């Protein structure tokens, strides 16, 4: 039943606001030169910025050495940044000890994982079916990374560099999120034993530093599994990362469950939906939507945290770079190599945090207002 026209038709026609929108020049002036003193500040800081940028450009671009043909060029007087080190070592930085001829497999695995993350980030793809996407992606990536069925066989000890970082991140998120759901639902369970186990797990792993969790995983896991059973280093690291991520994500999910109005549960129950169908079709889709930005934050953190696995002897992107710089020919130019991988880390994290901002706004505008 729409309003009858005479209730919505304007009585007084709409007019423009009295002061027209300020032009770009006026806005610039208002921002940078509102008072003489602030104008002066703008000029001084601007000049400083120009000088610094010019110097940076001089070092990073103008005087930079790009070609790795002659390492001595980097040490010449007045030489700028030695990007040659990146050109020379990028394969080892990106792929660690992975056999050179098989690098394409690792690169393909990376692309697959990145693609799976991108697809999962699109709101229109959000559904339980994403689980299948991740199972398929991880299976393919593992096949590429381990070989067999036509590909030369490799072991996890050959893994290193960016593929290791991405595999760890993907494994952490795709196993950690289901764990988080279970822990969050379990924490609200009416069964005391279930609740106790879930609270215990969450509090234990939230109460420990990641380093301790990783050490614990590498020392305690073998204890539990009995002597003689050697647990793959990668698996140990993954178990530690999953538990750590899962404990934090569980609390985020629980926040989402609590943010949902009680009426949503009551409506579902009064329609006769049993617990699991209610959770899967009504509660979780809404609760998770609310916490996506917070979860993305945690995923960024998990991505960065992968560099901690160096302490149990895995060579992730950072670790592989460090190892590649042992070469005496290039050892003086580690700064450029680190700057480069910082840029790569930053690109990943920045993309994710921009995404978090975008999705937050989108969810806000999407979110249909709840009735009073």
């Amino acid at each position: 039943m729409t309003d009858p026209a005479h209730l919505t038709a304007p009585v007084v026609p709409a007019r423009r606001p009295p002061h027209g929108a300020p032009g770009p020049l006026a806005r610039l002036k208002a921002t940078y030169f509102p008072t003489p003193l602030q104008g002066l500040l703008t000029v001084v800081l601007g000049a400083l910025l120009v000088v610094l940028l010019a110097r940076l450009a001089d070092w990073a671009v103008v005087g930079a050495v790009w070609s790795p043909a002659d390492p001595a060029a980097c040490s010449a007087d007045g030489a700028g940044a030695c990007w040659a080190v990146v050109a020379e070592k990028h394969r080892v930085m990106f792929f660690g000890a992975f056999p050179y001829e098989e690098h394409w497999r690792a690169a393909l695995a990376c692309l697959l994982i990145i693609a799976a993350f991108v697809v999962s980030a699109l709101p229109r793809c959000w559904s339980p079916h994403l689980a299948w996407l991740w199972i398929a992606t991880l299976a393919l990536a593992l096949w590429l990374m381990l070989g067999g069925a036509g590909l030369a066989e490799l072991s996890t000890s050959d893994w290193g560099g960016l593929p290791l970082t991405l595999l760890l991140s993907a494994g952490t998120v795709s196993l950690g999120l289901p764990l988080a759901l279970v822990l969050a639902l379990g924490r609200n369970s009416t069964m005391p034993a279930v609740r106790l186990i879930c609270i215990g797990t969450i509090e234990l792993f939230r109460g420990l530093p990641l380093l301790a969790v990783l050490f614990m995983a590498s020392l305690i896991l073998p204890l539990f599994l009995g002597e003689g059973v050697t647990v793959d280093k990668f698996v140990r690291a993954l178990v530690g990362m999953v538990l750590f991520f899962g404990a934090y994500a569980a609390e985020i999910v629980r926040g989402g469950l609590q943010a949902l109005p009680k009426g949503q549960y009551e409506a579902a129950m009064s329609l006769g939906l049993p617990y699991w169908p209610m959770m899967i079709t009504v509660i979780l889709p809404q609760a998770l939507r609310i916490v996506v930005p917070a979860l993305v934050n945690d995923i960024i953190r998990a991505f960065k945290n992968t560099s901690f696995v160096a302490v149990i002897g895995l060579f992730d992107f950072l670790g592989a770079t460090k190892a590649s710089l042992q070469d005496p020919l290039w050892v003086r130019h580690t700064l450029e190599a680190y700057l480069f991988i910082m840029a790569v880390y930053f690109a990943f994290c920045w993309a994710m945090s921009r995404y978090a901002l975008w999705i937050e706004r989108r969810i806000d505008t999407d979110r249909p207002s709840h009735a009073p």
Partner: protein
Amino acid sequence: MTAITMNQVNKWFGALHVLRDIALTVNQGETVVVCGPSGSGKSTLIRTLNALEPIDQGALTVAGIRLDGAEARRQVRRRVGMVFQSFNLFTHLRVIDNLTLAPEGVLGLSRHAAEARALALLDRVGLADQARKFPGQLSGGQQQRVAITRTLMMEPEVLLFDEPTSALDPEMVHEVLHLMEALSREGRTMVCVTHEMGFARNVADRVVFMVSGSIVEQAPPDRFFDAPQSDAARTFMAQVLH
């Protein structure tokens, strides 16, 4: 045939005795309006009827099922529909999916059959063109009519309403009351908590008046409004009718 029997029902929230020796029978096809001052236990009473609130003492039979245990609760909930003050539509689902969710998941209807039923009902309540919208895109009155339709999808034997018009802007109240009246006229069993005294007078078969967790009076609307027996009812009516 009785649709609902409440026998000596008692309930406490902690030390607060919210339902006191409630005895109430609702016959099939009857429309009962429950009214009373705020905090008198109306919502609690109606919520016990589909086991959203468990009772502590007494016996409760709804739609022929004695409400005790999880299985009975399940059976009762699929036979009883509830309409809430705040609509409680599933905001992430389109209107059509709000309607088909439970018939598919609980009654086992096929997607096709559920959609057909949904479209027929939406047409009946004048919302056929809104099927593909999200609840947030509808007015309050439209949302509440969708919520009522959602309960009708389950072909319930009993309909419960807890202040279905209290969250609505005044100009939308009548479209919801109109629908409720039509449902009452087609012989549905309804229990409505409402402050709409016009609805009570014109549509209800019986008015139940509660004070402090007790049923103080129950009578056909003519007698309740024209010759209330208790002082409490007279005071209450003076307040709601001005």
